[in-house]
Each structure stands twice: as structure tokens, then as C-alpha cells.
């Protein structure tokens, strides 16, 4: 069986009788088994997905199937699914099973998507290389010596290595777009509030957003239609009516801003730079306007993001205390040691580092110097971004300064690792949508992506233009 590239392809193969849905699920299950050394899956729901495949196949036969029938989906291990284990790749959620389903999984399920398993990620979505998982790193399918990117490394690898058709991840500072770039797939981070966060294990609530990994822009648009929209369980989910994202509209004479500083930054790989410049020429040749604009806060993006995301994380992760569920230290003898020992033993190093930094920046005496200041900087970043997007339809940058790096290359230096997010955090801080498109291959053999961003709630425009570029 040739691995399908889109749901449309799956549906026509099913209709043509090339294979049935059970065959397709078995194909993915075999791939998962064969490629288990990539460490993408934490758990495979084999029997369940086969059973459901039969049910959905009969629905297809009866002509009553939902919009996503035939789509085999993997879930990042921070998206809860009723009756299933979920751990955020952390020891602290050892043995925990969710009592409820996230809004996203409910909506996918209602349209007959099939869930094949849960996917490895950086612990609590904190990382850029998937080396922070309590269950080991995820390898890059294009070169197993390289990282998959993070934090949704398992989600990117699973789609790239044909272990499922579509996967879901979460993006707080680039955790969908960067691994999508490293693994050569499409990764979409919607507008903040476009997709409900109900059932997404929180990292930084003001920036977290769920989004898909796909081979095709069409599939990204299709699943967005299903998962987006208001939700009574999430106050921050927008009530704005959703668009028909999958009905692309041709865009001519687009106005595109390229952030000048992003192409002049020190860490930018020269081939990546060349690819972007070539792309700019091509866009101009196609009749679009591409202009260099200055974004003076490039160096402030990552520090601002770190202060705010760590502050929120320090509070969001307080609930993991060994009291009601998850890991409780055997060495705990009273209330204080239940907290300190369970959390010391249950959380990994990077998570503890961020909790401590976040606690620090919120502390009396430091709040104004760090948290308040970062809030002000965030406002400036938002204003500047809005200003650019008043004049332009899109902002274009590389997704990442380089291709996937080798294991261990950055893990000794957290600051270097944090700079991985330099091009992606702008969208999270400003709350705008961003997509990484798998357009290029480096001479080192690794894929890398182009990032496009648009104004809030302009996913339809963003995806239409993406489709046009990808072809």
C-alpha cells in the first residue's frame, strides 16, 4: 500500500475499493511497529482503533459517515481523551486516565476520525527537540541521528513517517511549526482562541493553541473546520463564526512582509536564507508584492516569551502535587514532603527549571522587573505586529534558522535551545495564526519549512495562500 497523502486520496481509494479502512489502519499499525525505534508513540490503541475502523467502514458503506471518516489520527500526549491514559510525557502523571474528552477529540470523533494512539512530546510541551520527554527522545524520520523538533516531536514524526495520516499537537512558542519544519510536514497553529483549549494540558494558557500536522494544506483546512469554534468549556475560545477554510479562494496581488531582521540574524543557516530569498523572488514573479519591514523586537521575543510562559507554567503545574492523582512519592511522610518529594521526583529537569524561573518572576520584589515588564513588551510586540498586518496580508519568515540538529547538540545550553523559537514565538505572543509549509530540502538531506503568518482569524486567507504556494 502506498501511504496516502490526504483524506481525499484515502476516500477515493476506499471508494475505488483499493483497500478498506481496516486495511489502512493495519498499514499504519505495521508502520508504527516497524518504526518503533523512532519512539513517536507512547501508546497505541490497537484493538480499539481496529474495532472503530470496522464501525466507520460500515458507516462509509451505508453513506452515513462523517466528514473525517477515513482519517487516522494521532494525539499529542497532552490532549485528553476520555478513558485513556494521558501523561504530558511526564512521570508525574504516572497511571493517570482522563475522565473526560477534550473538545478537540470530541469534535474529531463526531466526524468519524479514528484515534490510533498518543504521541510522545517534550514533558508538558516544554522543549524544542523532544529530548525532555520522560519516555525518551523522538527521532527524526529523515535522519535518526537528528531530533524531531519539539515539543510536538512525536506528532511531527508520526505524520512524516506515515504512522497516521494526521496528528494533533499544541503550539505555545512554536511547538507545532518547528517540528513540522524539521520533519517536512505541514504544521498549523491557529489564532489564539480559534480552537478550544478544553482538555489540553496547560503549559502557558495565554499562548497555548492546538493545531494539526498534515501532509497537505487541504487536510489542515479540513480539520480546522471541524475543531475550531466557540466552546462553553473554554472562556477564551472565540465566539467568532468559523470559515469554510477548505474552500480555498485564489489570492492575487498579495502584500507580503518579510521581517528584515530575521534574514540578518546570526544563527541563520545560509541555505535557509537562500531558499527564502528565492521564494521571495518567485512570489514577486507571481505578481505579489514582497517588502522588507523592520521588526525591532526580534531580540526581545524569546526573553519576553520565556518570562510569561514560565510564569503561567509555574502556576498551571501547581495542580500536580501528588494529592489527588498521578505520581506520589513513596518517601513522602507528611503534607510538605508529599508536595516536595512528589514534585521533585515526578518532574523532569527542564520542567523544574521553568517552574522555578516562573515562580521567581512572579515573586514580590521581582514582579515589576520581570513579569510586568514582559507584559509591556508583549503589548509592544502585539502592536507592532498589528501595524505590519494592517499594511500586509502576510508575514513571511523561515520557520526555524536551520534544519533539525543532532541529539545533544543544544541540550547542554538551555539558552541556545530557547533561541530555536526565535521566528515562531511572535505568532504566540501576538495571538495570530502561523503555518509552516514543507517546501525545501537542505543539502544535508533534511527538510525545512517556510513560515507564513496572517492577521487574527484570517486562517482562510492564510491557508488559501499556503495552498497556492505549495501548489
Amino acid at each position: 500500500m502506498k501511504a496516502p497523502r490526504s483524506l481525499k486520496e484515502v476516500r477515493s481509494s476506499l471508494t475505488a475499493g483499493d483497500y478498506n479502512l481496516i486495511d489502512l489502519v493495519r498499514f499504519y499499525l505495521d508502520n508504527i511497529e516497524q518504526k518503533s525505534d523512532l519512539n513517536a508513540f507512547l501508546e497505541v490503541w490497537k484493538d480499539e482503533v481496529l474495532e472503530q475502523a470496522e464501525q466507520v467502514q460500515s458507516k462509509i458503506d451505508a453513506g452515513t459517515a462523517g466528514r473525517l471518516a477515513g482519517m487516522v489520527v494521532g494525539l499529542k500526549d497532552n490532549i485528553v481523551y476520555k478513558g485513556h491514559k494521558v501523561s504530558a510525557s511526564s512521570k508525574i502523571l504516572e497511571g493517570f486516565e482522563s475522565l473526560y474528552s477534550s473538545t478537540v477529540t470530541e469534535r474529531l470523533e463526531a466526524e468519524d476520525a479514528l484515534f490510533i494512539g498518543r504521541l510522545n512530546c517534550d514533558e508538558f510541551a516544554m522543549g524544542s527537540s523532544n529530548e525532555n520527554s520522560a519516555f525518551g527522545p523522538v527521532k527524526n524520520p529523515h535522519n535518526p541521528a537528528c531530533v524531531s523538533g519539539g515539543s510536538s516531536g512525536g506528532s511531527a514524526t508520526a505524520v512524516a513517517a506515515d504512522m497516521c495520516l494526521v496528528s494533533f499537537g499544541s503550539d505555545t512558542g512554536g511547538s507545532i511549526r518547528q517540528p513540522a519544519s524539521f520533519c517536512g510536514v505541514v504544521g498549523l497553529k491557529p489564532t489564539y482562541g480559534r480552537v478550544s483549549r478544553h482538555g489540553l494540558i496547560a503549559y502557558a494558557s495565554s499562548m497555548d493553541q492546538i493545531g494539526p500536522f498534515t501532509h497537505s494544506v487541504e487536510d489542515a483546512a479540513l480539520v480546522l473546520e471541524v475543531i475550531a469554534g466557540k466552546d462553553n468549556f473554554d472562556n477564551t475560545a472565540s465566539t467568532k463564526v468559523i470559515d469554510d477554510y477548505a474552500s480555498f479562494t485564489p489570492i492575487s496581488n498579495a502584500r507580503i512582509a518579510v521581517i528584515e531582521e530575521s534574514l540578518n540574524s546570526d544563527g541563520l543557516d545560509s541555505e535557509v536564507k537562500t531558499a527564502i530569498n528565492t521564494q521571495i523572488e518567485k512570489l514577486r514573479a507571481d505578481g505579489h508584492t514582497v517588502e522588507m519591514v523592520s521588526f525591532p523586537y526580534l531580540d526581545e521575543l524569546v526573553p519576553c516569551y520565556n518570562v510569561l510562559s514560565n510564569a503561567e507554567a509555574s502556576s498551571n503545574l501547581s495542580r500536580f502535587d501528588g494529592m489527588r492523582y498521578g505520581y506520589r512519592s513513596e518517601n513522602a511522610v507528611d503534607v510538605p514532603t508529599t508536595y516536595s518529594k512528589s514534585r521533585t521526583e515526578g518532574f523532569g529537569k527542564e520542567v523544574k527549571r521553568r517552574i522555578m524561573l516562573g515562580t521567581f518572576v512572579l515573586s514580590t520584589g521581582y514582579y515589576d522587573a520581570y513579569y510586568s515588564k514582559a507584559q509591556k513588551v508583549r503589548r509592544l510586540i502585539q502592536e507592532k505586529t498589528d501595524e505590519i498586518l494592517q499594511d500586509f496580508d502576510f508575514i513571511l519568515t523561515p520557520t526555524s534558522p536551520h534544519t533539525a540538529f543532532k541529539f545533544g547538540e543544544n541540550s547542554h545550553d538551555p539558552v541556545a535551545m530557547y533561541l530555536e523559537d526565535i521566528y515562531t514565538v511572535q505568532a504566540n505572543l501576538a495571538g495570530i495564526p502561523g503555518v509552516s509549509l514543507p517546501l525545501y530540502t537542505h543539502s544535508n538531506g533534511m527538510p525545512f519549512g517556510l513560515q507564513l503568518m496572517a492577521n487574527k482569524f484570517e486562517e482562510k486567507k492564510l491557508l488559501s495562500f499556503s495552498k497556492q504556494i505549495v501548489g
Partner: protein
Amino acid sequence: MSKEHEKYEAVIGLEIHAQMLTRSKAYSSDKNEYGAIPNTQVSPVTLAHPGTLPVFNRQLLDFAIKLGIACDCDIREVNEFARKNYFYGDLPKGYQITQDTTPICTGGKIVIEDIDGNPKEIALTRIHMEEDSGKSIHDQDPFNTLIDLNRAGVPLLEIVSEPDMINGTEAYNYLSEVRKLVRYLDICDGNMEEGSLRCDANISIKLKGDKKLGTKVEVKNMNSIRNVQRAIEYEIARQIECTESGEEIVHETRSFDAANGTTFSMRSKEDANDYRFFPEPDLQPVIIRENDIASIRKTMPKLPAELLDKYLNELGLSEYDAKIIVDSKSIALYFEELISHTKNYKGAANWLMGPVKGYLNELGIHISEFPISAQKIAELIALVDDDKVSNSVANQKIYPLLLKNPDKSPLDIAQENNWIQESNTAALGEFISAAIGKYPDKVEEYRNGKKGLMGLFMGEVMKLSKGKADPKLTSQLLRKELEG
């Protein structure tokens, strides 16, 4: 009070936490109900399961606006929420969702009586919305602390006063006023014993006339209004004694021990938590518009201060009666109903304060359990006012029967028992002539100044009329007849 004590004055501010009577919790759809089996009103949101988010309960907002209107506060348009972070076993999220820099109400006041009975305004600093923690139970298991999370997430309004009170009596009166108010507004049951109304007191002392405030001590764990007063009185005396003996007052939190009426140190403020407040990213700010406030204003019930004013100045009740009626919302509501059926306001107050309250007290029941409707009491008042029965017949004969047969009308009861009094002057005249004719010598004595004999003639007329003679009219006619 000793001489030393008179040099000082106390400065007291109260922080009140009032549990709201909303149907569901502040940020989840879990039921808000007191007394359920432990840990049965706990959904994944209350348990702080991974991925759950708070959803704001608009009813809490309405309640806060009501209280804000009642206290004459400024009500904020843009309400943000904040997280107050600390670890405790009964705080599932590890933070409490509250309001920090943008409380829904600022300013405002509560009018109380000072120790001499004069009105005094206590200014409010703020009122804000927050959620309760769960309950840690330390005394039911010898080895473990038990945790009940039913209360976790129950909505609270925190009402913070300015340090405007100067003694325990004012604190007592303030707390009583606040309790009365939340009960009138029907937003809190005000039950301090069950903890639905809780109070912490901040107390310091200073030399009279001094501008500089003394070191503040916070006192907690007072589970009745009376105990708040006791704790404050103890604490003032303790602080004065400390100061007089040259000791420093420690900035600390103390707990009240109701058994012996003293306070003891719980923790120094030096050890206080750093709560790391920051804006709650899971909730959008709630916007309150002018017309939201206006529409709630329309649904506001009459408040105690308004009713008191009406009873004193419009209805002419005595201050004593008016205050007692207003003191309890349910009594006041009964009275309001009563006076919608009769214009004899004083009579209505007398009936309520006398026979009705007497019956309630005797049986130890609440006015809601009182069998007779306000309308029937009004009918009874009308019987007396129309001279159909005497006050004593109404009170001692009809009322007891009405209590047993509350569905009957007072008039029917009077008629069935032949208690409608004789007010026919001609008929009365015959009885009077007969009575006078029977005792000619007594008539003489009366005319010579022995006015006390009136009772004798009255008794005779009553005997002859079988108790139905209207006493007022009879005494009038008798006097006329005797004095010529």
C-alpha cells in the same frame, strides 16, 4: 476600664467572606449545596484534572452587583480575574481564582449604630469575587487529615471594610448589618456557625489623637458575631497590656479560642506566603455595562434601612418595634404583607410583636412555619377596629382557634361562637338601665365620688349581655347615665 486603657483607642477593620447562594460553583457547573456527602460535588474541574478550565458563573456577577448597589459602591466596568498561588491540600489547582487589582466594587459604606446608638458610617474598601477552598478536617481521623472538596470552588464575595471601627460593639453591629443585608438580598444565608459567613478582624491600638497607627494583628476563627466582639475586646485589652508593659506588638495572625475567650498566635506575618498574584489567563475580563446594573437595580428588594425609615417616618411605629421588625427579613416581609391588607399599622405591629412573635417563641419556630396568613391577621385586626369584637376576645378567644384552624375566617369563628359584640345602643340601654336599677345605693355612692364602682356596673352589663357588650361603648353610655 482602667485609667491606662482610657489613653488608647482601637482601630478595627473587618474582612468578611460571604458564600454565595448561587446554584452552581463559581467556575464550574458543580452544584453549590451545603451538607452533601463529602466529595460528591466534584467534577474534573473542581478536582483540577489536567486540561480543565474555569467557566465563569454569571450569577455570581449579579450577586456582586446587588451587594454593590446595596452598599452604594462604585461598580467596575472591566473586571479581571487573578490567580493567588499557594499550596494546600484542600486547594486542588494550587491557586485560587480571585480579583486582585480590579475588584468589582470599590468604595461604598455600611451604616451602623455606634456604642451610644448614634448612626455611624463604616466605609468599604472593596468587594471582590473569588472561590472558596475545600475543607480540611483534622478531628475525625486520628492519623490523617481528611479533605472534602465539595466546598472547593464555591463562590465567595470578600467584603473589606476600612479600619473605621473603634470597639467590639461597632464590629458586632457592623457584622450584624452585613449579615442582615446579604439575607435581604438573598445572596448568602449568613450562617456563621456553618461558615457561610466568615470574618477576620484586623486590630491595632494607638494613643488617642495619634495619627500613627499601631502594629496590626489579624484575628481569625471566630464563628459567631458575638465571638467576633469577644475576640476584639480581648485583643484590644491584650495589646494595651503589652504596650503598657513595654512589649512590642508582633505583626502576626492570631486565632480566637472560644472556650476561654482569648487569642493565641498562629503565625508571624514574616512567614506569610508570597501569593504571586498575576492575571488569570483562562478567563476573559467580564464587562459590566450601565444597563446591566440598571436591570439588576430594578430587581432589588426593599433593604432594611429603607424599611426602617418607612416604619418610623411614614407608619409612625415606635423605634423599638420598627427595629425588631426590620431585623429579620422574613418578619419584615410578613409585616409588609400584613400592612398591604390593613391601614392600622400600629395595630399590625402590635399583633406581630405580641401574639405572633409570642407563638413563634413559644414553639421555637420560624415565621415561615407560622400557620396564619397575614391576610387573616389583618381580618382579625379589622374585627376589632370595627368594634365587632373586643381586643381581648380577638386575642384570647379567636386567635387560639385561628391557630388551630388557620383556614377559617376570623369573622366566621366569632359568629359561630356568638362573640360578635352588642353595639346596638338601644339594646345596650336596656342592660344599662337594668344594671343601674339593681344597685340604687351604689349609684348614690358613685355620684358621691366613688368612681371605682364603674367596674361593678360594667361587670353587670357584661353579665346581662353574656359578654357581648362593646366595652368602649358601654363605659361611655354608663358614664353618661350615672353622671347625668
